[in-house]
């Protein structure tokens, strides 16, 4: 590749042609402030509208300042990132942005974790001239089951738009209106609930301000814990343990499973259980369903629908219910682990401890925003009593732990409660892209072939590529597996299926980049995609350290079937662990 030589702040550097000024400066250790720009390298997502104009620099010979995030270097370029002209412009632009931003930082969900706040500090903004007579752009507050849009706080960085349109291909968010009234919103400024939104929460994950946040249920959790008549049961999703530590200053990828259990126990949860248990249960049901369809297919049954698609990701379920309603027979009917857990907790476990389900509160801690919507779906309740009462995110849980004056790093490790706290390594890897299908393969292989799996790790199913495919040898029978994370990638595989061109027997789909570890409810990565990789490593390490690594070997799962469910796909299992799908367009548009 051609290299070009240029000067930045008096220092010379040579970089490949096509490098932006911002990146070239970073090589020299010069950190030009950025606000709207976001580069998720490993995921090939780059947001560079050049809109905020905070990163402007002076280029000799150019009339105007240029945005360094989106201007390529040129040979002989002389750049100044810190001239007084640049510094004055940057401050003035920042003052302008702040002049149209609410000042309620004290009670803002993003306070302390806000890119705009950080930038105001960095640029030393102490006053906003003319604020007293500056009109603010105001918008209607929009609350959906998962996401709150408080667009008075939108700074038009367009990151959410990039995630929603380019990466997820959901198309719920786009800029509407012009000039001072421009804002990112669903078409016709409808509510998110009346849009194609899947609640994947990737918009929330990248929003630099408090414009897009999760619906916070921590106060409801506190009320439940405070109510002596309630038995409060908590389940923690596999991805949470690989990320929660970041909220307490630990390195990304630090596993905090034991400390998390301690913290939850200290917070007063009556039973601290693990969603991983339900993940094992999912494998039993989904794996059996897969084998069933596969066997019928091999026997020449023309009616059988293949490939089978995983159904544990609620963002993904929302996506196909909206975009592919005519294909709703294809995904597995297995409920997500969160809902399987809630269903079993409020039936099998409630009976066991002789508590009425109305007196039991099931809280789930999830890396996910779509789970908030999922647990409110009508079909996941009995007589109006939901199987899972409240779903809170990793971030919300961190707030709760901090409120209890607990420092996660200093807590002793503790074990989950029995019986719904035991899990295999297969349940753990649900957190990372490819993990569900790997877990299913471990079990399906042994059931299908009747042989013991020698090598449990299916490396070919792992990785961060958006779309992956692998062949697994089931004792002479080759199984084609497809994996996609990110809904844009999912769409590609789905379109193949729709066109009848799919080569796969089974496809795993996760809505979020990297799978649940990159969920919309996780600690904010602030544009650093390497954090997702670190979390994935933690998940696979946790799996490796587990004594049991196959779902069907989980003794408590075996016991659950013996005592309660009978066998996978039994009538009872169907009633409690399976679901059906809707045409979401009809639901939204009431047609």
């Amino acid at each position, binding site marked *: 590749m051609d290299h070009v030589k240029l000067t930045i702040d008096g220092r010379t550097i040579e970089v490949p042609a096509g490098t932006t000024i911002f990146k070239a400066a970073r090589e020299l250790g010069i950190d030009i402030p950025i606000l709207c720009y976001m580069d998720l390298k490993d995921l090939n997502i780059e947001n560079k509208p050049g809109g905020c104009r905070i990163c402007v620099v002076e280029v000799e010979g150019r009339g105007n300042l240029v945005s360094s995030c989106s201007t390529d270097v040129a040979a002989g370029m002389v750049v100044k990132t810190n001239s007084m002209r640049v510094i004055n*412009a940057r401050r003035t632009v920042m003052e302008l942005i702040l002049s149209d931003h609410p000042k309620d930082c004290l009670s803002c969900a993003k306070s302390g974790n806000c890119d705009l706040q950080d930038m105001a500090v960095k640029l030393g903004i102490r006053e906003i001239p*003319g604020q007293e007579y500056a009109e603010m752009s105001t918008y209607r507050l929009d609350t959906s089951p998962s996401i709150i849009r408080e667009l008075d706080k939108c700074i038009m960085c367009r990151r959410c738009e990039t995630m929603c349109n380019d990466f997820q291909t959901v198309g719920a968010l786009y800029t509407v209106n012009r000039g001072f009234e421009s804002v990112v919103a669903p078409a016709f400024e409808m509510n998110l609930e009346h849009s194609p939104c899947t609640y994947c929460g990737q918009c929330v994950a990248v929003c630099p301000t408090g414009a897009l946040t999760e619906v916070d249920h921590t106060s409801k959790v506190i009320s439940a814990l405070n109510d002596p008549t309630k038995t409060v049961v908590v389940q923690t999703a596999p991805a949470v343990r690989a990320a929660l530590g970041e909220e307490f200053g630990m390195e990304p990828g630090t596993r905090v499973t034991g400390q998390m259990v301690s913290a939850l126990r200290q917070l007063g949860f009556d039973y601290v259980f693990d969603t991983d248990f339900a993940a094992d249960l999912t494998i039993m049901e989904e794996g059996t369903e897969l084998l069933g369809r596969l066997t019928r297919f091999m026997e020449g049954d023309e009616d059988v629908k293949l490939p089978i698609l995983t159904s544990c990701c609620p963002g993904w379920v929302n996506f196909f219910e909206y975009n592919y309603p005519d294909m709703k027979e294809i995904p597995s009917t297995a409920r997500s682990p969160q809902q399987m857990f809630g269903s079993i907790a409020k039936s099998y476990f409630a009976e066991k401890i002789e508590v009425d389900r109305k007196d039991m509160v099931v809280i789930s801690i999830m890396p996910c925003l779509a789970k908030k919507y999922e647990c409110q779906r009508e079909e996941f309740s009995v007589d109006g009593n939901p199987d899972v009462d409240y779903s809170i995110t990793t971030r919300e849980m961190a707030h709760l732990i901090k409120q209890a004056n607990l420092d996660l790093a200093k807590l002793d490790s503790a074990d989950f409660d029995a019986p719904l706290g035991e899990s295999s390594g297969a349940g753990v890897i649900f957190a990372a892209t490819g993990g569900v299908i790997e877990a299913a393969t471990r079990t399906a292989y042994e059931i299908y072939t009747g042989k013991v799996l020698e090598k449990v790790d299916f490396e070919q199913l792992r990785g961060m590529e958006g779309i992956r495919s692998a062949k697994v040898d089931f004792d002479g029978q080759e199984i084609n597996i497809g994996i996609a994370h990110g809904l844009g990638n999912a769409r590609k595989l789905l379109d193949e299926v729709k066109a009848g061109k799919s080569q796969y027997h089974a496809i795993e789909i996760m809505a979020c980049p990297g799978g649940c570890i990159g969920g919309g409810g996780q600690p904010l990565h602030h544009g650093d995609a390497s954090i997702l990789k670190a979390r994935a490593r933690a998940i696979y390490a946790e799996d490796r350290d587990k004594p049991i690594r196959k779902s069907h070997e989980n003794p408590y799962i075996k016991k659950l079937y013996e005592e309660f469910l009978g066998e996978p796909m039994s009538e009872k299992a169907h009633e409690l662990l399976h679901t059906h799908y809707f045409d979401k367009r009809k639901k939204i548009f009431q047609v």
Partner: protein
Amino acid sequence: MPVATLTEIAVKKQIRIALRNCGVINPEKIEDYIGRDGYFALGMVLSEMTPENAIGVIKDSGIRGRGGAGFPTGLKWEFASKSKSDQKYVVCNADEGDPGAFMDRSILEGDPHTVLEAMALCGYCIGANTGYIYIRAEYPLAIERLKTAISQAREFGFLGKSIFGSEFEFDIHLKYGAGAFVCGEETALIHSMEGLRGEPSLKPPFPAESGYLGKPTNVNNVETYANIPVIFLKGAEWFSGIGTEKSKGTKVFALAGKVNNVGLVEVPMGITLREVIFEIGGGIKDGKSFKAVQTGGPSGGCLTEKHLDTPIDYENLIACGSMMGSGGMIVMDEDDCMVSIAKFFLDFTVEESCGKCSPCRIGNKRLYELLDRICTGKGEMPDLDRLRNLSEVIKDTSLCGLGQSSPNPVLSTLNNFYHEYVSHVVDKKCQAGVCRDLLEYFIIEDNCVGCTACARACPVGAISGERKEPHLINPDTCIKCGACLEKCKFDAVILR
């Protein structure tokens, strides 16, 4: 008769190239256009010139884009011709958005074929077989005439396959704009054509490398195209003989405001503002005195007396703090308040900003608010420094030409009419008598006969006085409705 003389001058000083056929031919008859050498240039170029040679002619002519920025047209064509691609496009920017400017509409309505011919010529030069005219939907007659012209040109074989028996094929389609000012910016225009939000994106990549649907695209304005066939017919040398060293040919201006003759004028580059305003324009209306002229559309600057003898070309106008723009020219007289004028133009840019970049989205709004404070008597001296700093930063940091020029009306009035700002801020006076909040109604004692008509007309009881005695207006109660002034038959009530 002095009027006749003025008209004679008005005609004599003009050279009609872009407007050569407007009002002369029947725009709905292709034969009329052909009768005026229409499509001769296309035939000649296709049979006698290589694309490289043809681009050379345009380069030699020195013509620059008439849409505002003044980029050399030949160079633009050369870039597009050098881009390698299986598909290229020629686009005509007919999204005329400057308030009061209508030269593009006049050309499209009066001489649609010249644009079609020029686009075909451009297609041949850059290697494109498809052209689009992006025209605002508010121009129904222009659209109608273009449709007629396109179908006639196809019928005559000037569009379609093997034009003039050559291997060159070219066709033209229309795309409608919804009337957003910013869509006149070429990247915003292209996004709008693609069905996306009409907002600009950073250049590079220039449309010549990656434009409509990611393909090399040449975008020129209507007036630019209207010059092209003539350049080929009369030669680059002839064209470059008109105008100044760096700005060749003519420019159409939409002369408006407080001037006797308003309308479109086409004048050679290098003519002075004085010639346009006082000779072609016939001077200031009602014998008032000239105060300023604003060139370049809503984001141009306001020039004064001292600029009147400056030869008009791209560089000179920018050096004066204004710009060529698409050719708006609004003349102001002593009755115009320059702060209000700046506010008026900012009102437009606030409305038309696309909202993509923060300096333009928020900054213009803040400029407007500051001007409004000054016009309503709330301004303070530090506001003037803020106005200047904000204007300079918005110009310096905005993403596209809109924000990079929108503060021009503020900066140019600050530079040329600073005293007016000061009198608004310090004396709380608007000398031109425009800013209502800074004026008061006053009764001249000597003129008042005490007829009580004003007191009876006053809706808020602000006027007191005995019958047959001079009356008095209480400024604290007065709502400045003007009813007293209207009623007074003795010229006793004045606004001061």
